[in-house]
């Protein structure tokens, strides 16, 4: 991303952002995947993912590539995440009741261990992450169009 000083923050912030954004995203994904082992989970991880994208837009201004994600894509992904979580819940019907944890529980401390919990964590984090990023986009884009008019 060549730096044009017109939008976004100063060059210093941009170079640091290029380094930290990847780490924040990775940390968010770590929190989501290890939701059932260590503190955190679907919600915290999702918000961290959203924050890493917001961090990118704050540093590189409205013309950052991330800001080009259309609102439709964001809200579609979000409804998709919600549908995924509902389907994980409906999965329980196979085993009898609504939210039953049908998959085998595996060994306690392993990564793939707690049945449907990791999958619900992942679907929640997709929903929360993209949803909050869509809110931030809506607040930014609204301001943008008004100023152009």
């Amino acid at each position, binding site marked *: 991303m060549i730096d044009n000083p017109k939008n976004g923050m100063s060059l210093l912030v941009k170079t640091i952002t290029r380094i930290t954004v990847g780490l924040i995203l990775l940390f968010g994904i770590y*929190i989501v995947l290890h*939701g*059932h*082992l*260590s*503190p*955190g*989970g*679907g*919600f*915290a991880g999702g*918000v*961290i993912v*959203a*924050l890493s994208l*917001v961090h990118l837009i*704050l540093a590189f201004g409205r013309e950052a590539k991330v800001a080009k994600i259309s*609102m439709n894509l964001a*809200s579609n992904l*979000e*409804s998709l995440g*919600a549908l995924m*979580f*509902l389907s994980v*819940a409906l999965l329980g019907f196979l085993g009898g009741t*609504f*939210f039953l*944890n049908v998959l085998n*529980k*595996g060994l*306690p*401390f392993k990564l793939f*261990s*707690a*049945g*449907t*919990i990791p999958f*619900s*964590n992942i679907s*929640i984090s997709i*929903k*929360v992450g993209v*949803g*909050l990023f*869509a*809110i*931030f986009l*809506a*607040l*930014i884009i*609204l*301001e943008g*169009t008004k100023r152009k008019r």
Partner: protein
Amino acid sequence: MELHLLLLFMIFAAIVAVEVKDLLSSVIGVGAVGFALCLAFLILKAPDLAITQLVVEILCLIILIRATINKDLPLVIEGRWVFNTFATLAFVAVFLFFAFHALKELPSFGDPIMSVVKRYIAQGKAETGAVNLVTAVILDFRAYDTLGEATVLFASVIGIMAVLRRPGRKKIEEKNHD
């Protein structure tokens, strides 16, 4: 002991956040209360909550500052709503008085009666396979709450997009098609 200090700091920061004239500094005041709350969660042995509170707090601050920063805002002018102040303070005094007496009957701080929770702690890991019991409660014992929770967030996102869309109603001329 440190909890008492933290709570006093939060009360002080809340008073500052409510009373100070400039909007941006009151937003910073709320941020201080939020981060102190995150510390309180850490002291109360709730790491899940500390992470979530910290991160949600940051997002709230960003949105709040977004709402206040680029508005050419005059300083907040204070009206002299005498009756309103008196009514609010009277209600607060009555509420705190009865709350003080009601709090006496709650189990004292530090030993909650954990009748339902004993089973979660004892067999939580075995039944759900999740090591982090809070996640076990969220996504297995009370997963229905979390479905409601995800729907709350979904509703607020759709609500925000409905409120922020540009043309609320079709223009008058579009409407009566005859």
